[in-house]
């Protein structure tokens, strides 16, 4: 005998309801940019990844937020809803709290500036670096974008090269282009 899916889901829901998880995660399978792994803590959204294989995230989530990492759909329900609305073109601002506690102060500062880049607009690595205090740190900002733990919601797809070229995206340039087209920033 193995654990029935019903009992398994019941435990996962109970674990979240009892507030016993450091990180609850689940995979949203049906988005236009492919499956997304989503993780939340009680502080907010802590991860979105285009790599939806949970195995690849468990260790790093545990290290950053604590060992009680468990797949549990309920706590990410509001993230799923806002992402759905975004992909349907009905949402331009996310109202999700984010949890980037584990990152360096500079990293957090850059991501905080990034969060202000508006829907349908783009900025450059250098401009973002300037906003974060050092206009010459474009390359460092590029690295931070590349390691952005919460893409889409922290909109690193809106950061492009000076010439307007898309430059790079951890999720692949196709997805960056797809998101910018969705927002009307690209025709």
């Amino acid at each position, binding site marked *: 005998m193995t654990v029935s899916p019903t009992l398994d889901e019941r*435990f996962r829901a109970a674990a979240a309801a009892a507030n016993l998880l450091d990180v609850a995660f689940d995979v949203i399978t049906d988005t236009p940019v492919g499956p997304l792994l989503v993780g939340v803590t009680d502080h907010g959204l802590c991860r979105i990844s285009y790599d939806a294989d949970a195995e690849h995230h468990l260790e790093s989530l545990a290290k950053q937020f604590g060992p009680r990492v468990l797949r549990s759909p309920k706590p990410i329900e509001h993230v799923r809803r806002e992402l759905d609305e975004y992909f349907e073109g009905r949402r331009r601002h996310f109202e999700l709290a984010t949890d980037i506690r584990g990152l360096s102060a500079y990293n957090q500062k850059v991501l905080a500036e990034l969060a202000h880049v508006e829907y349908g607009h783009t900025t450059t690595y250098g401009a973002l670096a300037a906003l974060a205090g050092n206009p010459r740190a474009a390359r460092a900002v590029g690295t931070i974008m590349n390691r952005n733990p919460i893409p889409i919601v922290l909109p690193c797809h809106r950061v492009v090269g000076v010439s307007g070229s898309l430059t790079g995206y951890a999720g692949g340039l196709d997805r960056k282009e797809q998101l910018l087209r969705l927002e009307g920033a690209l025709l």
Partner: protein
Amino acid sequence: MIPPFETFYEEHRDEIYRFLERRLGRQRAEDAFQETFLRALRAYPRLHTSDHLRAWVFTIASRIVVDDFRRRRPNAELPELVTEDGRPAYEELAPLTDDLPPKQRAAIVLRYGYDLEYDEIGAALGSTEQAARQAASAGVRRLRKEKT
């Protein structure tokens, strides 16, 4: 380092469920299953080592089986705490502790067999640090009396 809970849970959920189902029947096993892993979650951040995780979760499950029996049939003889599944991990201490009441035995095995702290033992047994300490010392006193 202890593994992420997801890994631990996936590794042990089926055998824990089988164990509980054999002891309690399907319906009661489902509640006991959830309670076992909720207790494990509560105690999990306080674990210092990934050694003996299997024995640890079997101990929690065994404790819940004992509680379940006690609740339903207060006067019935308690089932054996040590199970076929849990056996290998208990082996060294089993001959010494076989005659102890289940709670004292569990406390001693976890303290001296697995080196858990009393707060961890309390959490594993669904009681308190103080109760775990008392159960272990009562068990030790009893062993001293019996074995010397």
